[in-house]
């Protein structure tokens, strides 16, 4: 497929939009299904592998309106059922089609705090866009209405044209809330609790706020300025933000209640412990957890080799183990940092990859080589302990396993060697043990996830939890949904007499 520039795509959209507006008859469903799905204007693959800027530029106004006109406005709204925070999708899409972007933003903000982020990183193809009637009619989920891109368009339009509005804050209640961590779940809790007039303080272990949106998701997928603008909104709302504060170490959890007088605490510290694989050679020099690789590149800005003091490994040939978004992020980061060859090794088939379809497509366009039904068995090193090659085995799909996906089974005698100097492990994260280590009283499951009831309450009074610390590594939107639930419960508790 040849790459079309933003200008070309916009020109085509403007033309089509005019045709539609010149029609006397209102659009019939058949006409709507006939409108071509609008592609995302993007940097060309050749260009973008040499920079870290966002891949997608976002829809132009004409593209957004045209894409929105593809929506059939179904009465049963299957898309809303697919959305973890139940945004009124047909309503906001209609507002976009009408060109009333401010109204669209208002509708989205009723349910979502971070539309600019979610529009970019939500797995729409398995959520709102999966049951979309347009996609079903055209027998291709990829042809569903691009709800995510429209959400991004609306959020970006609002930020650039109106400035983000600060929600109204209720009268001070005198109640203090501590929010531990500053990822998506925490930001939602902070905003929701602050709106009710509580005195909210975010305690973040890192020197920058935003959690995984800052250290994990790369700039080329989510510009840091967008996260920053969300943080700035919280600050304007009067939320206090404390960096370099490790709950459990700088202050014990119970001391936050007993000594510092917090009335409620939300734990949203994430799934910050990389899962390693225990394969032979995993501690050789040149084997990294995706967490380390991405944190160096993103948060510590090692991509800026001239200015950053944090080094990043000089890689020529890289193998990334895993098939999720993090694996794609690590592979594409390595490419941008100058690796000549980047391979993704995944033990199931491409169909089962948990990564967003768009990320896999982008990775391929950028020349990342996918090796599916493969697994790294061992990493071999040089005499001075540096990675020299990876021993890879071939797999085939067997019977379905607990996850419902067909279990990959190793093909005996299929091992071969791939010459690489770097191996990045991206097979998931475990819960960070720090809070549990320093707060033995709090109950967790055998994997270390915080145990909560349906209202986000932990086993400790006044302590709530949500996001990856409860779910295990999941998505931004699921974390936000969890945060919202916990915030409701925190606000109810603080209004009750028990607090």
């Amino acid at each position, binding site marked *: 497929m040849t790459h079309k520039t933003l200008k070309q795509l916009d020109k085509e959209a403007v033309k089509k939009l005019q045709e539609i507006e010149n029609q006397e008859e209102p659009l019939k469903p058949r006409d709507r299904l006939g409108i071509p799905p609008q592609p995302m204007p993007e940097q060309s693959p050749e260009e973008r592998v040499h920079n870290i800027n966002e891949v997608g530029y976002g829809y132009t106004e004409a593209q957004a309106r045209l894409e929105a006109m593809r929506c059939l406005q179904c009465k049963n709204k299957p898309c809303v059922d697919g959305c973890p925070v139940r945004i009124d999708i047909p309503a906001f899409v209609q507002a976009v089609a009408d060109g009333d972007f401010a109204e669209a933003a208002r509708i989205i903000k009723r349910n979502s705090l971070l539309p600019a982020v979610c529009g970019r990183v939500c797995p729409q193809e398995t959520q709102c866009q999966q049951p979309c009637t347009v996609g079903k009619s055209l027998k291709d989920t990829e042809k569903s209405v691009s709800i995510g891109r429209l959400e991004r368009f609306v959020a970006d339009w609002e930020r650039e044209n109106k400035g983000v509005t600060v929600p109204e804050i209720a009268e001070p209640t005198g109640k203090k809330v501590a929010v531990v961590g500053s990822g998506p779940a925490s930001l939602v809790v902070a905003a929701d609790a602050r709106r009710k007039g509580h005195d909210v303080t975010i305690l973040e*272990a*890192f*020197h*920058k706020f935003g959690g995984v949106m800052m*250290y994990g998701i790369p700039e080329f997928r989510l510009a840091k300025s967008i996260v920053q603008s969300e943080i700035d909104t919280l600050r304007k709302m009067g939320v206090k933000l404390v*960096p*370099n*504060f*490790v709950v459990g*170490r*700088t*202050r*014990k959890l119970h001391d936050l209640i007993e000594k510092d007088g917090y009335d409620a605490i939300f734990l949203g510290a994430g799934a*910050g*412990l*990389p899962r*390693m694989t*225990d394969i032979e050679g*995993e*501690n*050789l*020099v*040149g084997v*990294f*957890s995706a*967490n*380390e690789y991405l*944190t*160096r590149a993103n948060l*510590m*800005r090692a991509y*800026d080799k001239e*200015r*950053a*003091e*944090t*080094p*990043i*490994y*000089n890689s020529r040939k890289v193998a990334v183990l895993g098939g999720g978004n993090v694996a794609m992020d690590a592979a594409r980061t390595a490419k941008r940092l100058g690796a000549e060859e980047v391979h993704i090794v995944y033990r199931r088939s491409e169909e089962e990859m948990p990564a967003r379809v768009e990320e896999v497509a982008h990775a391929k366009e950028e020349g990342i080589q996918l090796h599916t039904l493969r697994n790294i068995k061992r990493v071999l090193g040089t005499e*001075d*302990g*540096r990675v020299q090659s990876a021993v890879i085995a071939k797999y085939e799909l067997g019977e379905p396993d607990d996850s419902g996906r067909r279990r990959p089974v190793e093909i005996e005698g299929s091992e071969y060697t791939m010459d690489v100097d770097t191996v990045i492990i991206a097979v998931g994260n475990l819960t*960070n*043990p*720090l809070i549990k*280590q320093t707060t033995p009283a709090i109950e967790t499951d055998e994997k270390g996830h915080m145990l909560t009831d349906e209202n986000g309450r932990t086993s400790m009074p006044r302590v709530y939890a949500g996001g990856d610390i409860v779910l295990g590594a999941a998505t931004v939107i699921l974390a936000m949904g969890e945060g919202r639930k916990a915030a409701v419960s925190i606000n109810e508790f603080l209004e009750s007499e028990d607090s």
Partner: protein
Amino acid sequence: MQKIIHTEKLAENVYLMRVHAPLIAEERKPGQFVVVMADTEFGERIPLTIADADVEEGSITLVFQAVGKSTQDLARMKPGDKIPAVVGPLGHPTEIEKVGKVVCVAGGIGVAPLLPIAKAYREAGNEVVSIMGARSKDLVILEERMRNVSDELTVCTDDGSYGRKGVVTEPLKELCEQTPAPDLVVAVGPAVMMRFCAETTKEYGIKTMVSLNTIMVDGTGMCGGCRVTVGGETKFVCVDGPEFDGHDVDFDELMNRLDTYRDQENDHNCKLEEAK
């Protein structure tokens, strides 16, 4: 932002700093460390051990060697200046028990983290015998403070310019051969020195704890850059350590991993030299 209260040059490229950090001063225990940043935009996260703390003043004492750009930036800061980020205390505290005779061995600036550990062992009722090693007389630091927390102290220099000529493992071996033999050895310093201490005590079967200072980014378990094999298992120095049984540590692997960024470091040092 943490205000610097006091700075002192202890030796060539070795600095002591007292920093206002009341919460860390209150919580910290011997064996723990902090992560410091001299610049939160492009700076590095530097793990530094805590040499001392004063709860009343609300301060912690850090000792560091200015070896790269980040630590050199830190060394240039003066009392009244603010350090943009000081995070901690991190890592497990040393498990202090009364065991009898404890030998504390420090190499180079390892004396700084060892000080509070030696002090705590002495306060717990142990006999503390200390050995300090440095390349030469000018690099011997904190000798008086170490003497104050030890029942006995031997200072060694590689070149014999001060104290006993030789390396720390020589007096350590002599102590292991004495009766009563030490019940515990604690060694803190460069990896190679800790490795030789562990090798020395192994044949006598004396438990030897070492405090590892590996590459890390966050210091809270998130990156896993600090992985080390201990007794055949992968451990994270930041959340499982920093102290481990020296007889179980895979020092070959540890030293290779410390060298991960040798190319970039050489390049960086060349640029630093040019800048001078």
